[in-house]
């Protein structure tokens, strides 16, 4: 399995969301009956790099287009919230914006945001 590329860590805050597997059924009596539809609760993470270096961006871009092939291929990623390795894939297209051109003493920078989902 492929591994997340060796680039700088994302900035805080890192958003972690849980899928809700609950089925709910409201009754006329005022109470709600619930049960889980699935036995596992997968998570998604939103990662942001407000100022990613151009070298890191090139590494990330190669990983996204060549290794992960968009959201097709899963890969191992070390979850920063608990340090455990997770099998994830890209849940949506990454958003990248160039925020600084290369100039004397200033490297080219990118603002990047990605969403990963647990497989």
């Amino acid at each position, binding site marked *: 399995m492929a591994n997340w590329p060796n680039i700088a860590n994302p900035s805080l805050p890192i958003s972690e969301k849980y899928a809700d*597997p609950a089925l709910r059924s409201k009754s006329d009596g005022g*109470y*709600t*009956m*619930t*049960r*889980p*539809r*699935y*036995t*596992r609760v*997968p998570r998604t993470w939103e990662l942001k790099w407000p100022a990613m270096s151009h070298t890191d961006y090139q590494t990330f871009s190669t990983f996204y287009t060549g290794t992960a092939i968009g959201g097709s291929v899963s890969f191992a990623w070390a979850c920063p919230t608990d340090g455990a390795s997770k099998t994830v894939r890209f849940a949506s297209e990454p958003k990248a914006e160039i925020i600084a051109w290369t100039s004397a003493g200033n490297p080219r920078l990118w603002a990047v945001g990605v969403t990963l989902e647990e497989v």
Partner: protein
Amino acid sequence: MLNLSAAAILEKNKVAGDSAWPVLVEIQIPGQDPVRVCNNNENLTWDGNTWIAFPFELDEMQESGRGEIPSVALRVSNVTQEIQYYIEQAGGGVDFPVILRVVNSKHLDITTPELELDFICTSCKYDAYWITFTLGGDAKLTRRIPERRYLKDFCPFQYGGIECGIPASTKAAYPTCAKTLAQCRQRSNSTRFGGEPGIPLGGFYASA
């Protein structure tokens, strides 16, 4: 009446239950290991087998008042084309058993499913996204009974077959047969004639 286990009844009646009711599908493709999948988001182990978490959908049972056998569509994901491979290896996707079972995720040790429905796959089609199996009743329900038509002057047996039983030399002399009693007599094989000359018919009867 549906008979649920005592444990299942307790789970079913909870206002806030903590167990899921995954559907397990076993597709018994001839010549292949059974395909065992469940509509959960992680694999389950039940009755000594691993049931792979795999996307599939079940339509509602289709019933009509026109004497048709009820059927239900089972759509299995074909994005990875794994099950399509098995179907192509088996020469199509019809006439094999498909068993649907419902179990309780907290009581996977109970090897008797809470619900079990046996179907026969009556048709199969696929596209890039889904394989659609149409599940219907047993083939016995669609079989013609009696198997053959009883005709006065027509033999239903295959010419030269086991039931016909003419020797190869006779078949060489008469390569084709019109399946009538007269043709059978011409081949000295009328004792094996498969038609029913005794069926009454008005008027004068003569075999062509």
